[in-house]
């Protein structure tokens, strides 16, 4: 018997994209690539159940329909391309925080007292990843998580996600435009071309 998939997607359908079915093994990472406006973000939002859509999704063999929506989103975490902050200070957005990860992402604990207004786009992006990880999700949906980062932090984030895959069997769908990055993070992925999803390997 084949090992149970961590994430099973069956006939997921958003916008005018063709229905998409796939399975992700525990700890597997796949990339998602396509021109802007082709529907990558909408696919991730559909998996996180944030928009109306067709299709069925299972996590560890359990159907999404049988889980409360907010529990689903806590386990299948979507990290949007643009992070959003609503309180004045960074720390007010965190209930718990891994200080080790914080240091690797280039921050001291003092960052928790920083004002959101002072943060650069890149700092927000790194902190948003940390925030998304603090709920210990089983699946990560990453929408261009390194788009505003330099080489060093791009590498740090790839390493952190890699460790989560190995140590906690977190499965990842990673939206990226960078060919080199696709090769580093995944063995296979999907291209969106003319409204259909084409599976490719690297």
């Amino acid at each position, binding site marked *: 018997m084949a090992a149970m998939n961590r994430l099973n997607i069956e006939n997921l359908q958003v916008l005018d994209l063709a229905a998409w079915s796939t399975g992700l093994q525990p700890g597997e990472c796949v990339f998602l690539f396509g021109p802007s406006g082709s529907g990558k973000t909408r696919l991730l939002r559909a998996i*996180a*159940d*944030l*928009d*109306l859509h067709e299709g069925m999704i299972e996590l560890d063999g359990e159907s999404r329909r049988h889980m*409360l*929506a*907010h*529990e689903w*989103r*806590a*386990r299948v*975490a*979507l*990290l*949007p391309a*643009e*992070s*959003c*902050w*609503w309180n004045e200070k960074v720390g007010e957005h965190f209930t718990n925080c891994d200080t080790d990860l914080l240091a690797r992402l280039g921050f001291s604990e003092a960052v928790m007292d920083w004002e959101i207004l002072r943060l650069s786009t890149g700092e927000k992006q790194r902190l948003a990843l940390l*925030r*998304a990880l603090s*709920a210990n999700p089983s699946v990560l949906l990453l929408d261009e998580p390194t788009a505003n980062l330099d080489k060093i932090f791009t590498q740090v984030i790839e390493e952190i996600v890699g460790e989560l895959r190995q140590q906690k069997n977190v499965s990842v769908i990673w939206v990226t435009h960078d060919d080199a990055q696709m090769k580093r993070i995944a063995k296979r992925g999907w291209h969106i071309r003319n409204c259909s999803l084409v599976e490719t390997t690297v």
Partner: protein
Amino acid sequence: MNLIALSALDLGIASILVLLLALLSYKARLGVERQIVIAGVRTVLQLLLIGMILKVIFAAVHLGWITLLSMVMLLMAGREVMARQKYRLKGWWGFGLGTMAMFVSSFFITLIALFVIVRVDPWYTPQYSIPLLGMMLGNTMTGISLGLDRLNHTAWQQRSIIEARLMLGWTWSGAIADIRHDSIRTGMMPMINAMAAAGIVSLPGMMTGQILAGSPPMEAVKYQILIMFLITAGTGFGTFAAVWFGSRRLFDDRERLRLERLQVKG
């Protein structure tokens, strides 16, 4: 002390003041002279109409007529709540939500006042029931429309914040909690302010009216306190209910934010 009856001439003199204001608006190019005149004419016609209706209803005390008038008042108030929201729920919800909240809070509190506090016989005596209900509706209307307008408008502006919270696994209720609290406070604030300022900054309208009509000041004061408490409770509970159900309606059963359920006025 006898009531000094006003003649048409007396009202005519007062109307000249309003016309002078309209003239000033015209000369100063404020552009509200038309609105002033139309609103003034509406005041006269609407109040004359309700005066005649009340005269009939007071003469023939009948529960049916009183119920009918109450329903008409409620529906007009419901329409007004809907019209005052820049972003409002589409379809029947836009009208029904505010109207239901007003119905429950205003009617319930008016009935408590009639049965438990004033204890008139019969309980629907129109001299008590109609003005009480009218004041309840007029004020809950303000609270509920302010609260719902704030809720829908803020949810629209802060959609990315609400969705960011949903992505982090928050419940729908948690994701909109601060906006909901803020909206309920907004709806209650006018009444809280009115209670705090009553008698110091302003003499409330109802009390002024009673005193002008010849009531002893202390009786007028007691009624005014009663009314203020009832209005505050009615506005508070009504706003609470409207904003709570309104915020629930912004999400579906999968806790997705569904802002397409709102429509923008104009």
